[in-house]
């Protein structure tokens, strides 16, 4: 068993940023895991990403030439299973991302690996020891992987600082992988329609979530946001319910925002939401649940009823 295998991600001809974070995750346990970090990139033209993956401490970049131009889960699965056979890594690191969710768990099941997803800390004590949220991130579960020769971790984006690439070129190697065809055929990409508002440019976001509970309350918050000089944004449940357009959604599947002030009312802070707003300069959160995960990233918090606070904000801003 040797070393760490990190799987980089590409999309539409670009390296996804999370790849460099995953390299950092791998480097953090490199010595304990056998002293070697290999980065695999599965793409139609993998060689073009080698420079961007050449971070200090990476020993080798494995190039896997995929049959199709776009990510395909079954191709990724076949590639990774064969790389596990040929490289015999002790640890495999993927992102907790949409693409990797589409094949990582299948590989772990099919190959009988140790497995953890949405990992938020990685340590070593004779083998990998990881932390991940439990009960909607209100608790942390520490996991071990007894009896497993190889463990696959899916690491949450934003957990590790991205490694700095572009130094001395890391040696590359073309990996021999055979594919027996894709199960899915790519038909195209679609972008969410822009409804005339760009929440990523707003300096002050007034954000509401599930706590609003009633569609009829939305106009009130639109008016309050406007009076406050803010742009209204929302968390996923309000878009799922059809109450607000997806262009206003903050989070993993919506927009990543970095306003000067992010004021969140009635948003508990699911991991996918936090991924989209945790880099705001100042975060203020109001929620009735003192254990709401959003308080772990907020700079200011109040345990209060959002409607009572909204009443008072309306008064104060008159």
């Amino acid at each position, binding site marked *: 068993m040797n070393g760490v295998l990190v799987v980089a991600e590409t*999309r539409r001809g670009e390296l996804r940023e999370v790849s460099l974070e995953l390299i950092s995750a791998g480097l953090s346990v490199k010595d304990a895991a056998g002293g070697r970090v290999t980065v695999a990139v599965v793409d139609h033209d993998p060689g073009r990403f080698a420079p961007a993956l050449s971070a200090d401490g990476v020993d080798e970049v494995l190039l896997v030439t995929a049959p199709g131009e776009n990510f395909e889960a079954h191709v990724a699965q076949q590639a990774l299973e064969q790389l596990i056979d040929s490289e015999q890594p002790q640890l495999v690191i993927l992102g907790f*991302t949409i693409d990797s969710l589409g094949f990582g768990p299948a590989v772990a099941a099919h190959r009988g690996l140790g*497995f953890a997803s*949405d990992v938020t800390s990685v340590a070593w004590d004779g083998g990998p020891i990881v932390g991940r949220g439990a009960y909607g991130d209100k608790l942390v579960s520490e*996991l071990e*992987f007894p009896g497993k020769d190889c463990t696959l971790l899916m690491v949450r984006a934003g957990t590790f600082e991205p490694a700095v690439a572009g130094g001395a070129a890391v040696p590359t190697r073309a990996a021999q992988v055979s594919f027996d065809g894709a199960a899915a*055929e790519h038909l195209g990409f679609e972008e969410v329609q822009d409804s005339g508002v760009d929440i990523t440019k707003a300096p002050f976001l007034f954000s509401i979530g599930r706590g609003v509970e009633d569609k009829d309350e939305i106009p009130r918050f639109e008016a309050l946001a406007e009076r406050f000089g803010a742009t209204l944004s929302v968390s996923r449940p309000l878009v799922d319910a059809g109450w607000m357009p997806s262009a206003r959604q903050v989070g993993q599947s919506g927009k990543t925002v970095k306003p000067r002030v992010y004021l969140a009312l009635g948003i508990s802070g699911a991991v996918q939401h936090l991924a989209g707003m945790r880099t705001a300069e*100042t975060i203020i959160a109001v929620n009735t649940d003192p254990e709401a995960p959003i308080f*772990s990233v907020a700079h200011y918090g109040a345990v209060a009823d959002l409607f009572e606070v909204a009443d008072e904000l309306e008064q104060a801003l008159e």
Partner: protein
Amino acid sequence: MKIVVPVKQVAALDDEFELLDDGSDVDPDFVERDLNEWDAFSLEAALQLRESTGDGEVIVITIGDDEAEEALLGCLARGADRAVRIWDESLAGADPLAIARVLSAAVGRENADLVMCGVQSSDAVNGATGIALAGYLEMPHVAVIKQLDYDPASSTATVKRELEGGLVEVLRIRTPALLTIQTGINEPRYANLRAIKQAREKPLDVTTPDELGVDSGAIAAAAGSRRRELKHPERGEGAEMIDGSPAEVAARIVEIVRERMSG
């Protein structure tokens, strides 16, 4: 047409909760249980497919103790045709791979055209059980679907996969396939009182992993991890909490915003 919908009864913590004395889990007295939010959408998608084609069967399967039967009855009341509950005490706290391994035995024998899972559960947020199940079944799979158009005649489904940042991929997959369904894909129905009463008349099988041919050794071998410890998160610096009445909270918020937005 046959559609299998694996579902989970999730645990939501009360605002104040306590751990068991041995620290292994949360004291069940402080937990409220309900059907996983994502599974309401996967069930609804299955029911709509059955209705649009005019025939077929929707089977819900769960792994859970007798309390989890409540979630299955809810699914039957909404329109599922029959239900299967699998349980053995050794499955308490099982990881997604062990769960998927047991499910694979129950789902595999159904020879379904489609298996539809929720993307993730709201309590554990692994996002893994569905796709791990596809791994055991060696079935084509797509994760995180926000639109589905199934064509039984050509044995394909055209789906939209939700990517990060508002991007969507359209792809066609051959079936039988396993799909994980994202929230917002439809509007899950509610069951009326009559349907809730009638749900008790529908078939609900209770079985064990052993009966499905998965013994405790196979479950232990499949398990991907073991929990060492459950603990409260380190909050770091944490938020500076604003105390006081709603008026005082609002006043302080206005003050912070004005200070941060000026200069």
